[in-house]
């Protein structure tokens, strides 16, 4: 009964979404207050119903109700509790249900906060949310129903893919979905602004926290996925330019540009067209990611569903959403009046450059991801576009971006002074130079990692130059710096922290150039030298886990003769699905890691293994955490913002309000 109640609740949510797709927008164009107001109860009730449906499915997984096909295909009565819960979204149908759960949650949150918004704005935005919702409910019911039943339930299920039986899976998809779906809110608001033809600073103020929150979740989700791939796939890499990874990177790039643009719009009433365009782009790319992963176009760990009808359905949603949004955009964009005028050298100008670079990066990833697919579809030729392409194409975009970040932060609104900005970055430049010398002394080259790490230090120190200047402006001795620091808006701190996080990640990436990699066959008692460490292979052994058996090696990491860590890399085999999985042995030493991954065992008892010493590698993910934290500080700032155009140099104490 519980299963069917969940199913019916989902169906009702679909019916409500259909009403929500029509009534509020109609009401807003007619000026009918009741039709607009209905958006709120509809969105709230819809969330209630989807939550019921989701709870019902979770219940079925928890009690191993094998009359539900989804449970049979993805669960097992002996599976640990946490994987019974995370297994609900560890498969196609369940993850789509999680998707609409988050979508309806966002809709309900907009409805709950609607009292503070202009009525036609929330009516139109929730109307667009209703359309997206209706499309996905119909998709779920027609092609991927998690409540499909079996009349003759079997006694046992097929278990979850072992690669997905990992704590990483419990966190990675929900974070990613919060990011993807969060962008649907800015998309809906952008469409609403286009429908009503009104877009102003108030709009930007309303949309800002949504966009930032989505960006934070997406940042964390991508970092989480990257670390998960790092420790389970056994190749020691943190980013593979895999199409599925790219699918999450593209909305992130567009979203990063969007949060910057939205802040310009809020403070300066400028870059409206950019903001609207990026809102549409960020969500369209999220949908594209969904299409790539769900349609079976790609085969990978993520592509648990390969069913052409699903692909066609999502392609339909994609075409409709992007097509109608862009049509609206083409129709209305010319009527969006830009407010603030600005000189090319100004904060606004810097952010236009930022937009250009980020969208170029986005386009590069898009081409690199879709070109092989298109080529295969048209000519049947299979090519793979991998790291060499992306590294070659992204470097000329990323490096100017990193150099420009601190400069952009120093420029004033409306018209800036590049020379003054450069002067204020002198400290950062000196820090970078010193860092370059230190890194060179430590590692003795090569040139690329030294240069990149110097750039990273420049970004980190430069990120705080603006804050430092505001606390203690030059030629103006402030007695109470602490009070000024506290008085600074949180968003200023957020900007500095997030940019510094970006630099920290870059430092981690730069340091890969100093890594040591050894692929070798080892026997018991062998010693492998890895940079500053020595790994002693103590013994090989085998043991049985709850649902796998594994071969593992005990290894000791030593530094200057003294043991500093023990690691146990292993190779697991899951008989139920007859699948292997490697578990890398990782020892975190300082900010770097010793990473060992096992390969095949040879006839003579030797074991193939990859040994890595990765200095500063953890900074890659720590940087992402710092970025997310900066975003959080910025979300917490609920002040109204007006960017004040500073008159050149005549007001030394003039600190721009945020």
């Amino acid at each position: 009964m519980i299963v069917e109640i969940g199913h019916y609740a989902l169906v009702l949510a679909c019916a409500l979404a259909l009403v929500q797709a029509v009534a509020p927008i109609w009401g807003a164009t007619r000026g009918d207050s009741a039709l607009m107001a209905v958006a709120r109860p509809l969105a709230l009730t819809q969330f209630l119903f989807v939550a019921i449906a989701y709870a019902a499915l979770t219940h079925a997984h928890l009690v191993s109700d094998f009359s539900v096909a989804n449970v049979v295909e993805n669960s097992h009565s002996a599976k640990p509790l946490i994987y019974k819960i995370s297994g609900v979204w560890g498969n196609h149908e369940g993850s789509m249900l999680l998707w609409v759960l988050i979508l309806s949650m966002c809709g309900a949150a907009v409805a709950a906060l609607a009292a503070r918004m202009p009525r036609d704005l929330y009516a139109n935005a929730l109307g667009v949310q209703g359309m997206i919702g209706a499309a996905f409910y119909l998709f779920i019911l027609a092609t991927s129903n998690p409540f499909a039943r079996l009349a003759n339930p079997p006694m046992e299920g097929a278990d979850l893919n072992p690669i997905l039986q990992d704590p990483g899976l419990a966190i990675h998809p929900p974070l990613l979905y919060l990011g993807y779906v969060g962008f649907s809110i800015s998309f809906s608001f952008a469409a609403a602004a286009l429908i009503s033809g009104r877009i102003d600073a108030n709009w930007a103020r309303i949309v800002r926290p949504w966009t930032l929150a989505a960006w934070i979740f997406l940042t964390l989700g991508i970092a989480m996925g990257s670390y998960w791939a790092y420790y389970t796939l056994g190749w020691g890499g943190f980013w593979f330019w895999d199409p599925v990874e790219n699918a999450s990177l593209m909305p992130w790039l567009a979203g990063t540009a969007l949060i910057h643009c939205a802040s310009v719009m809020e403070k300066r009433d400028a870059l409206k067209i950019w903001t609207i365009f990026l809102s549409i782009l960020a969500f369209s790319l999220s949908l594209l990611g969904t299409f790539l992963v769900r349609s079976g176009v790609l085969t990978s760990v993520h592509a648990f569903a390969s069913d052409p009808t699903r692909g066609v359905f999502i392609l339909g949603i994609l075409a409709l959403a992007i097509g109608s949004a862009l049509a609206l955009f083409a129709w209305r964009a010319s009527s969006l009046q830009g407010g603030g005028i600005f000189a090319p050298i100004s904060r606004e100008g810097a952010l236009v450059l930022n937009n250009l670079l980020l969208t170029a990066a986005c386009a590069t990833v898009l081409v690199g991801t879709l070109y092989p697919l298109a080529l295969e579809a048209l000519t049947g030729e299979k090519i793979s576009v991998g790291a060499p392409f992306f590294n070659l194409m992204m470097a000329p975009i990323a490096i100017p971006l990193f150099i420009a970040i601190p400069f952009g932060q120093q420029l004033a609104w409306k018209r800036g002074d590049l020379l003054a900005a450069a002067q204020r970055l002198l400290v950062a430049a000196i820090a970078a130079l010193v860092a370059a010398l230190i890194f060179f002394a430590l590692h003795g080259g090569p040139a690329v990692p030294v240069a990149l790490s110097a750039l990273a230090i420049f970004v980190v120190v430069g990120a705080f130059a603006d804050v430092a200047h505001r606390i203690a402006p030059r030629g103006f001795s402030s007695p109470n710096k602490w009070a000024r620091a506290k008085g600074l808006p949180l968003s200023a701190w957020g900007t500095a922290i997030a940019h510094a996080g970006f630099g920290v990640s870059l430092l981690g990436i730069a340091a890969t150039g100093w890594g040591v990699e050894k692929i070798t066959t080892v026997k018991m008692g062998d010693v492998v030298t890895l940079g500053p460490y020595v790994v002693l292979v103590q013994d090989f052994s085998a043991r049985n886990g709850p649902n796998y058996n594994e071969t593992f090696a005990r290894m000791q990491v030593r530094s200057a003769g003294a043991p500093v860590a023990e690691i146990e890399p292993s190779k697991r085999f899951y008989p139920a699905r007859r699948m292997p999985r490697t578990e890398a042995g990782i020892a975190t030493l300082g900010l770097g890691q010793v990473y060992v991954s096992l390969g095949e065992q040879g006839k003579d008892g030797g074991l193939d293994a990859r040994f890595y010493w990765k200095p500063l590698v953890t900074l890659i993910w720590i940087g992402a955490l710092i970025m997310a934290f900066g975003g959080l500080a910025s979300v917490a700032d609920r002040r109204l913002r007006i960017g004040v155009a500073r008159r050149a140099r005549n007001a030394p104490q003039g600190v721009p309000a945020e």
Partner: protein
Amino acid sequence: MLWLAFGLLTLIAVAAVLAPLARQPAAAPDTTQDAKAFYDKQIAEIDRDATAGLLSQADVEGAKAEAARRLLAAGRIAVPQARAASRVPLIVAALFVPLAAAGLYARYGNPKLPDEPLAARIGEKPADVEDAVVRVEKHLAQNPQDGRGWAVLAPVYMRLERYPDAVRAFGQSLRLNGESAPRYADYAEALIYASNGLVTADARKNFDRALALDAKNAKARYYLGLAAEQDGDKAKAKELWGRLADEAPGTPFAQNMRERIAALDGKKPDAAAIAGMNATDRQAAIRTMVAGLDQRLHQQGGSPEEWTRLIRAYSVLQEKDKARAALADARKALGESAKAPLDAIAQELGIEG
């Protein structure tokens, strides 16, 4: 009870649609008001910053002028004339919601199927094999050192074609109950099934161990013969099987061994034998095979591939009715999970289920 819950949910949905009508019609939206309120907040914010010493006097004026410019700009954009709330569209929507929900649920729902939580099913239903297996598995999860339990479970796994599980169970039985020729041979046999009939090196090693304990063990000798055949060593296979046949003259087993030896000599195996028959005999032989498959699928169930094979076979035999009936039975037995392959074959053969 179920319908009561459905009714309650529907009521909530309809109430949500009608909610705006219950309230007093609020004032019509006024965007000028919104913009003015926003402007007031901005001015207050600027004043606060000025008091805190974060803004210079010149900047305060600049910021206020900027805010004022925006307020003026907001006033220039036309908004639709406000109207009174209309009831009809919402009442229509309130009727639409239950109808749409009922329509969708009628298409996709299964109101007659109850929940089947595993805990409730174990013990309630008449004990069938799978039920018993689950119970023994649960027992062994608690008492993994129970050698007798593994020994009971292992052959059942073989019968259920769960070969990797069988390997594990025979392995545990061997470990806990001690070495013996039959245990080694059973374990090795499971290994062969688990690797799709290939006599692996591991399996051979275990047969050798069985023979070391009991040189007469028939299973080990038979499979070592199979291993020889797979190696292409026909002479050795013939010798091993020949001796097995000689030891039990007149039994079906001996008969079987003779046939295997004959097959080694190039006599035709089954499929080729059928191809060599005359038309009538061939039809009869095929029909017998199809009937066997039909019986097995109805009694023990099967995979979607097996069901499609059956449906296709009936279609080839020009027995449309039986094909149709098999399709219907397959849908019933496999449920929603096998909808796609069944739809595909129904369409391909032009039969409707």
